[in-house]
């Protein structure tokens, strides 16, 4: 026991008396201030991402070692002010006040400020000083500021502000020893007092009186009723933000008395019209006064790199054209760039399949391994390179800062659907995966706007659809050149599938915003951060996370589904079929000779496999629901594969691979699913008659359209239900998308058949 305690070496805080305490450091700061790279440097690979209990805001926590002490570091959502307007800003405020479930109140706040936008960054500081926790300012990107001619005297600033200021360069890892030392010092000393004029507002008599009045009148009641005392910062927000969250929460506890006290307190502050205007003006005046003498250097006359690049990228005429080119280039990279890796994995998987078939005697086990597990899961893993390239492209564009420009360019278009440019980044992430995209919609402040964005995001073709597009386009669209050397028909069809998702999403958003989810035009105010060279380590950390997530999904959900589908397709194996075909084989062997005999035996083998499949559980289910899918021209095998893929789309290919393998190709080592699809036929019951292909071009196109528009992802629906606050929304999303998918597939199959 002793040895374990010594090994863990927790810090003994003041007055701890033998109990060990783990201190919590909260990282606060504006978005784009480099907070994430500071968090990464402090916590490295110990970071864990999850959710705050009861709220769907991402929680990032990690461990940081300073000397022998271990600290818990929480990365709060980026915010410009503690007057919270969106769910993740609310969480940041709640954590700082100790009001967030499951998250202890931090002991120290490290406020990361971008040295280039110091004035604006310090606005949050003025509010943090009122929270009553020790604050350390981490002055980030000092090198970039210097390059712009801004030199900050950190020591002087520290003196004027009254808090420790540590200059750092988060992206280079410079200044972190000093930062860690400052953190250790901050927890060693006792936390500063709250109310007495430590911030600009409370230094002014009227404000101090008003807040003091609220605390006196309501403090005891509030503390008693909700078990947590009323903080000055909360009282301030309740005063200023009329009708806002803080006021509502206070009135919930204190009811009419609370209202009356707040009104009286507002009269004490001698601001004629607008408390918010008075508050912001006071804070900025304080900041400007404090900054005097701390900044030096001459502003350069030349425009910055960012400004120069933006002249091209956000050009009034060329900006959109370049944007379209970048998107196209990305799709080409994904489709073509992963080819060598994909072929290699494909080869390895089929080799593995042959090895298993050779090693294991024919029977249920061999079939389970070769047809179920290897064919099923292997099919999905083969697409890991494509998915990684897609996530890489999106991640780089975001880290560089281009995504903000894309939102700027797209805002006007999005406004015609009732959304705003702020929806662009979450929706665009839907091209990688709808689950983080839906989570990313948190930044949208208006609730109905956010909900609409979340409901249409699944229409954006996610990476799980890519294998299906890839296989079917590869198999049924001829590789003809449209623009020689640049664009071919296959690439064009792929792009069209993505475009289809976007167009339908725009239409759906338009309808939703005019009917069910009507609200005023959302506000669009967004920072355009400087372009930054993305740090290789943060891109790789994120990529690794995605790859692991994908492989885990393959390893669990898809493997489970693949085995289930296999079992349903394999069992039962009625004895009569075996006997019937055995007899037929003997007849053929005795009556025919040579090549004719070989062909007859081959046909019998196929017929037998298909009979087994028809009589299996899967086959019975499939034939029972066939009427649902026959208007689309789909054979029951396709219908069953579609049903099986509802929890996760990738299973569609797995189950097709399984059923086609089971039906049997002559060469068990046959390589791609594509070839199998082309060859797949609907065997006729009788000996004679033509074998018709299972997949024709109209059928293939209708499958593509179905998958483009249908919501077949358990993960998406669960996330949607949580974020939207009700299962009804998830159900709604599922229903409208399935309806669209079915109608779309129907239309396409009819039109394609008619055109052919």
């Amino acid at each position: 026991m002793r040895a374990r305690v010594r090994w863990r070496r927790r810090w003994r805080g003041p007055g701890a008396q033998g109990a060990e305490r783990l201190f919590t450091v909260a990282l606060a700061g504006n978005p784009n201030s480099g907070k994430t790279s500071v968090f990464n440097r402090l916590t490295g690979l110990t970071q864990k991402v999850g959710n705050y209990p009861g709220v769907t805001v991402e929680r990032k926590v990690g461990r940081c070692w300073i000397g022998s002490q271990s600290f818990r570091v929480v990365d709060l959502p980026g915010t410009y002010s503690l007057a919270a307007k969106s769910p993740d800003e609310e969480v940041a405020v709640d954590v700082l006040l100790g009001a967030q479930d499951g998250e202890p109140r931090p002991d120290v706040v490290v406020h990361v400020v971008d040295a280039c936008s110091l004035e604006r960054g310090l606005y949050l500081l003025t509010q943090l000083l009122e929270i009553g926790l020790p604050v350390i300012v981490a002055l980030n990107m000092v090198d970039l500021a210097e390059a712009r001619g801004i030199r900050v005297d950190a020591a002087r600033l520290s003196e004027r502000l009254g808090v420790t200021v540590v200059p750092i360069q988060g992206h280079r890892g410079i200044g972190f020893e000093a930062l860690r030392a400052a953190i250790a010092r901050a927890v060693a000393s006792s936390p500063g007092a709250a109310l007495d004029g430590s911030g600009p507002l409370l230094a002014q008599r009227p404000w101090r009186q008003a807040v003091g009045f609220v605390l006196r009148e309501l403090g005891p009641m509030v503390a008693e009723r909700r078990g947590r005392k009323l903080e000055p910062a909360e009282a301030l927000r309740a005063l200023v933000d009329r009708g806002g969250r803080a006021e509502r929460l206070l009135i919930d506890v204190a009811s009419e008395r609370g209202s009356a006290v707040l009104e009286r307190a507002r009269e004490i502050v001698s601001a004629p019209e607008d408390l918010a205007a008075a508050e912001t003006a006071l804070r900025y005046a304080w900041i400007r006064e404090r900054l005097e003498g701390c900044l030096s250097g001459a502003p350069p006359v030349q425009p910055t790199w960012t400004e120069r690049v933006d002249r091209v990228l956000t050009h009034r005429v060329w900006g959109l054209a370049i944007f379209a080119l970048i998107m196209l280039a990305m799709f080409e990279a994904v489709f073509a760039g992963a080819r060598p890796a994909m072929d290699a994995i494909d080869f390895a998987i089929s080799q593995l399949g042959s090895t298993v078939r050779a090693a294991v005697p024919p029977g249920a086990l061999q079939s389970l391994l070769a047809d179920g597990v290897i064919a099923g899961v292997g099919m999905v893993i083969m697409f890991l390179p494509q998915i990684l390239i897609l996530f890489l492209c999106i991640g780089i564009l975001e880290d560089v800062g281009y995504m903000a420009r894309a939102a700027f360019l797209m805002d006007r278009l999005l406004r015609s659907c009732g959304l705003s440019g702020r929806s662009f980044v979450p929706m665009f992430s839907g091209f990688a995966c709808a689950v983080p995209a839906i989570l990313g919609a948190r930044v949208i402040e208006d609730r109905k706007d956010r909900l609409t964005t979340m409901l249409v995001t699944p229409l954006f073709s996610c990476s799980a659809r890519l294998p299906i597009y890839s296989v079917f386009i590869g198999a049924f669209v001829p590789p003809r050149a449209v623009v020689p050397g640049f664009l071919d028909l296959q690439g064009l069809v792929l792009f069209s599938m993505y475009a289809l998702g976007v167009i339908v999403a725009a239409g759906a958003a338009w309808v939703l915003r005019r009917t069910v989810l009507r609200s005023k035009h959302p506000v669009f105010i967004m920072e355009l951060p400087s372009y930054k060279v993305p740090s290789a380590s943060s891109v790789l950390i994120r990529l690794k996370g995605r790859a692991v997530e994908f492989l885990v999904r393959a390893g669990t959900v898809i493997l489970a589904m693949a085995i289930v589908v296999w079992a349903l397709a394999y069992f039962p194996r009625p004895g009569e079929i075996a006997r019937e075909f055995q007899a037929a084989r003997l007849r053929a062997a005795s009556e025919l000779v040579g090549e004719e005999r070989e062909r007859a035996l081959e046909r019998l083998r196929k017929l037998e496999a298909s009979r087994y499949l028809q009589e299996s559980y899967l086959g019975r289910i499939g034939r029972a629901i066939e009427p649902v899918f026959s208007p689309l021209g789909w054979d029951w095998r396709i219908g069953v594969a579609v049903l099986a893929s509802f929890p996760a789309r990738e299973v569609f290919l797995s189950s097709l691979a399984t059923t086609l393998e089971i039906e049997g190709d002559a060469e068990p080592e046959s390589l791609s699913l594509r070839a199998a699809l082309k060859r797949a036929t609907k065997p006729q019951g009788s000996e004679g008659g033509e074998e018709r292909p299972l997949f024709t071009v109209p059928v293939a196109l209708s499958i593509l359209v179905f998958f483009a528009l249908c919501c077949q992802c358990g993960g998406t629906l669960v996330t949607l239900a949580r974020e939207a606050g009700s299962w009804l929304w998830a159900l709604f999303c599922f229903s409208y998308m399935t309806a669209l998918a079915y109608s779309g597939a129907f239309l396409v199959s009819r039109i394609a058949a008619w055109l052919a």
Partner: protein
Amino acid sequence: MHAKPSICEQTCAEPVGAGSTTLDQLRPGDLAKTVRVRPAPETAQRLQELGFVPGTVVRLVRHAPFGDPLEVELCGYHLSLRKAEAGLVEVERLEPLPGICARG
């Protein structure tokens, strides 16, 4: 050398023209000094928190392809906002001193 925090205040100091105008009326390259933000629930507060307080110097950088939204520069960073929101910010045009602040 010593410069004030709002860097442009030092170099561009001549108010021009009578009366104030709003941010959305400016042309690309124009400099202006914030007078006030018209009251509007939540939006006004957000604009003020981001730096649109009396005295802040603002530069209109450009318009987006369809004329909306606008990109402005203030307090050392760039912000994108719609014409509707920019219309809430009352400003007073400034004349840049020749040869300085010639960025854009």
